[in-house]
C-alpha cells in the first residue's frame, strides 16, 4: 500500500471539485458549513478580514482550535501555514489535517523560498496571481492551486484579475508552436516541463480553485464561469448577517453556476453581505496578494 503518492494527493483535490471550501474559526462554524454542503472547511483562529484588521504577525492557528474542528465534522479539514514555514507544515501534518494551505494570508516566514511540498504526505494548496506563479508552486509539489484574490476584502476584483491572467496565459501557450515554449517558460519563470504539459493539455496540471473576495452566490458562479473548478469562501460567509443561508446559497450557485435562474432564486433574501473594501484604498504594504515568490 503506497500512501502520500502524487495520485492520492492530487486526487483529493479532484474530489473537491465543484465544491465550496469555507473558512471557519470554531467547531460550531464548521458544523454550519458542513450542514450547508461545504465540501471541506479551512480551520483558522481568525478569518482573513479579522487578520487584516488586527495587523501584527499572523501565524498558524492554535492546534487545539484545529483539532476541535477536525472532531466536529466528517468532511475534510484544511489548515494554513506561513509561506516557507515548513515546521508549521510538519505540525499540521502531525495533527492529521487533510490539506495544508501555504498561505499569503499569514505573515511569510521566508522571503525567498516556499516549502518543498513533495516532502509531505498531506497535499498542499497554494495561491497564485498568474500562470508562472501557479506552475512554480506545482513544481514545488502543490496539489491544488487557487487564485490569491485579495483575502478579507469581500471584493472579487482581484480574484477575477488573477483567474483571467491564468486562463489567458494557458490559452496563449496552447496556441504557440513548440519552439516558442522555452522563451515563454523563461518569461513566466516556470519549469519548461510544466509549460510543455500546459501546451499539450490546455489546462493547469492540477485542479484550479478561486479564492480571495467571494462574498455572494453570483461571485462564486462568476469565478466558475471564468474557469475555476471550485471556490474558497473566507470571510464572506461568517462576516455576513445570515451565515447559514448565505453558505447554502453559495454552495448551490457553485453547482449550478451556468443556470442564472437558480442563481437568482438562491440569491433572494440573504441579508447583508460582508461590508467589503475598495482595493484602491488599501495601502500597498498592506496588500496580501504580493506575498509569494
Amino acid at each position, binding site marked *: 500500500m503506497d500512501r502520500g503518492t502524487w495520485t492520492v494527493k492530487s486526487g483529493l483535490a479532484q*474530489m473537491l471539485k465543484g465544491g465550496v471550501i469555507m473558512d471557519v474559526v470554531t467547531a460550531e462554524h464548521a458544523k454550519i458549513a458542513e450542514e450547508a454542503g461545504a*465540501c471541506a472547511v479551512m480551520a483558522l483562529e481568525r478569518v482573513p478580514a479579522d487578520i487584516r484588521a488586527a495587523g501584527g504577525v499572523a501565524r498558524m492557528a492554535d492546534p487545539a482550535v484545529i483539532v476541535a474542528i477536525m472532531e466536529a465534522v466528517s468532511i475534510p479539514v484544511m489548515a494554513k501555514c506561513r509561506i516557507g514555514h515548513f515546521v508549521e507544515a510538519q505540525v499540521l501534518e502531525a495533527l492529521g489535517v487533510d490539506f495544508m494551505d501555504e498561505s499569503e494570508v499569514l505573515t511569510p516566514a521566508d522571503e525567498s523560498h516556499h516549502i518543498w511540498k513533495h516532502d509531505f504526505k498531506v497535499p498542499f494548496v497554494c495561491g497564485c496571481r498568474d500562470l508562472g506563479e501557479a506552475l512554480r508552486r506545482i513544481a514545488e509539489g502543490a496539489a491544488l492551486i487557487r487564485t490569491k484574490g485579495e483575502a478579507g476584502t469581500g471584493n472579487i476584483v482581484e480574484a477575477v484579475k488573477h483567474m483571467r491572467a491564468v486562463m489567458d496565459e494557458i490559452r496563449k501557450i496552447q496556441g504557440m508552436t513548440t519552439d516558442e515554449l522555452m522563451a515563454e517558460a523563461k518569461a513566466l519563470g516556470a519549469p519548461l516541463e510544466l509549460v510543455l504539459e500546459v501546451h499539450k493539455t490546455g489546462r493547469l496540471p492540477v485542479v484550479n480553485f478561486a479564492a480571495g473576495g467571494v462574498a455572494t452566490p453570483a461571485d462564486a458562479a462568476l469565478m466558475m464561469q471564468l474557469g475555476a473548478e471550485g471556490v474558497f469562501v473566507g470571510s464572506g460567509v461568517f462576516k455576513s448577517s445570515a451565515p447559514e443561508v448565505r453558505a447554502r446559497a453559495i454552495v448551490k450557485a457553485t453547482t449550478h453556476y451556468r443556470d442564472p435562474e437558480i442563481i437568482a432564486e438562491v440569491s433572494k433574501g440573504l441579508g447583508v453581505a460582508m461590508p467589503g473594501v475598495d482595493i484602491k484604498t488599501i495601502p500597498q504594504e498592506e496588500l496580501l496578494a504580493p506575498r509569494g515568490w
Partner: protein
Amino acid sequence: MSTRGIRAKKIGVLAQQGAFSEHIALLRRLDVEAFPVRLAKELEGLDGLVIPGGESTTIGKLMKEYGLTEPVRGLAKEGFPILGTCAGMILLAKRVSGLNLEPLGAMDIEVKRSAFGRQVDSFETDLEIPVIGEPPFRGVFIRAPFIERAGDGVEILARLPNGVGVAARQGNMVALAFHPELTNDPRLHAYFLGIVHGGR
C-alpha cells in the same frame, strides 16, 4: 456510432460536486454518450447512471434539494444500471456509519465512511478483480469507505489482502470504494457498460 442502426448508449454522471468530469472523459473513450446530471429532468432518456467520488454529504444534500433522491431511488428499484465510486458507494448503501444523512439504500450493503482514516491514510494498491481478469487493477483509495456487511444478493468483486470488501455488485448496480476515474484503466467502466448493454 450508428453503423448498425444502434444508437450509442447514454450515461448520465451526477454533477452536484466531485470528480464527475473524469468519469465523463473515461466513458467517452468507450464510445458512449456521457454528460453531467444536475437536475431531475436530466435523468430522462438515460441508459445508465454514475454517482462519482466527491463529498458524500455535499452530493447527498444537493440531490435532495434539487429533487433527485427519490427518482434515483426509483431507478434503482427498477433495476437500472448504476455505478457508484467512493462517495457513490456511500450513497448507494443501505446503511452508513459516519454519515449524518440518509443514503439512497439502493444496495444491500453497510458501509463505513472514511474507513481507513484521514487523508494521511489514503493509499493506492494493486487489486485482484476476477470479473475483469489480469493484470491487477490499480485501486486509488482517497478517504475511502469499505464494506462492513453485505447481504445475500450481493457479490463482492474485490477485497483487500486483509479480507475487507472494496467492490460489490448487486443486480445492475456496482459500487467501488476506490477511484477508477483517476486511472487510465477503463476496464471497470467497460465492465459497467457491459451491464448497461444487458450482458453479464
